[in-house]
């Protein structure tokens, strides 16, 4: 089936198999930040933005992305670098395997929630698993990033 998908601002029109998942479609187009993790829709490693909303690309069929816009970490390099700095400062990246999906969901949260509380942050990011950090360093990084952003908008 032929689909047209915009990936990080660039339009692609291609024939795809109906059971191809978006994750494989994106990796075939050089988006290697999108990783295959649990494949049971639980870990959040494969998080991308579909029309601006965070979704699990391992669970969305590529055909469902037809006519839509997909953003991966490669398309949000400036914001990812900004937040990544805070993550590194707090020791929140460790092995780094979960970082792309985690950063994508943090950036989605920042766009969706205004001044989120600690509980709101924890609930929003509950679908991103990290085996290294115990989440405390990541939480500190998010809170410092949000404070820094607020400072910048004053």
């Amino acid at each position: 089936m032929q689909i047209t998908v915009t990936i990080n601002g660039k339009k692609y029109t291609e024939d795809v198999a109906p059971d191809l998942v978006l994750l494989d479609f994106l990796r075939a187009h050089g988006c290697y930040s999108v990783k295959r993790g649990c494949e049971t829709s639980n870990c959040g490693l494969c998080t991308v933005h579909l029309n601006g909303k965070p979704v699990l690309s391992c669970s969305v069929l590529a055909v469902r992305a037809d006519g839509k816009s997909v953003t991966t970490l490669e398309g949000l390099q400036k914001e990812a670098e900004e937040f990544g700095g805070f993550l590194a400062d707090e020791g929140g990246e460790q092995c780094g395997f979960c970082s792309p999906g985690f950063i994508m969901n943090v950036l989605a949260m920042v766009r969706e929630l205004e001044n989120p509380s600690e509980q709101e942050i924890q609930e929003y990011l509950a679908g991103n698993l990290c085996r290294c950090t115990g989440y405390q360093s990541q939480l500190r990084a998010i809170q410092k990033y949000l404070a820094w952003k607020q400072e910048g908008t004053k």
Partner: protein
Amino acid sequence: MFTVQQYVKVSSLEEAYTLNQKKSSAVLGGGCWMKMGKRRIGTLIDLSGLGLDTIEETEDSFILGAMVTLRQMETDARLKTTFGSGFADMVRHIVGVQFRNCATLGGSLYSRFGFSDILTWLLALDCDVELAGAGIIPLAQYAATPYDRDVLARVIVHKTSRKAVYESFRNTETDIPVLTCAASSLNGDLRLVIGGRPMRALTVDGLALTKSMETIVEKAQSLPFGSNMRASAQYRRHLAGVLVKRAVLRLREVE
């Protein structure tokens, strides 16, 4: 992962119904559960072109399309105003936001999972479902029906003065619930719904909200419970008492 020979984005419910009469066909919801199987699907039917991804409010009801995502129900301000925090409480522990942006109401409800938070909560309200073939039937009837080849199109949640609350328990955050519990009351009549037993949710009607807590808990604990890897029947029965008590106390507060 399942395999698909043919994908059809249907242009009408009738087309979906006709295509779904073949045993090898399947209707695609969010795909989150279906992808975990290895089914060989002949025709995969996609309803996403039918405008079923909206929540409409009418004078006496809310009409939720089958393609409405769990996240839409969680964040809809109108549902919150009318039904309190129940819609959000129902889904907030289901994996994460990304998952809830994918999983759909239709996919969850059609599957009638024993562990379904959605089925438990909606059974506590006054709901009908609209099916492409059978038309509009009460949700309670649909919940008890074996799987067939019909296509779930919409859920109609009637506005009544019913008050409802939702409770669930998980061994770990974001896991499938060990037990789900919804309690609602209308004109002093209490309705309890217990799911994750681990069989499909069951409803207990015919109790007064003012009845003693012991009687209410006893009634809930008299339902059949089963064991699986998450908990034993004995533990679930005990948990039912705890969740029912919490739910009824909250309900008495909002009444």
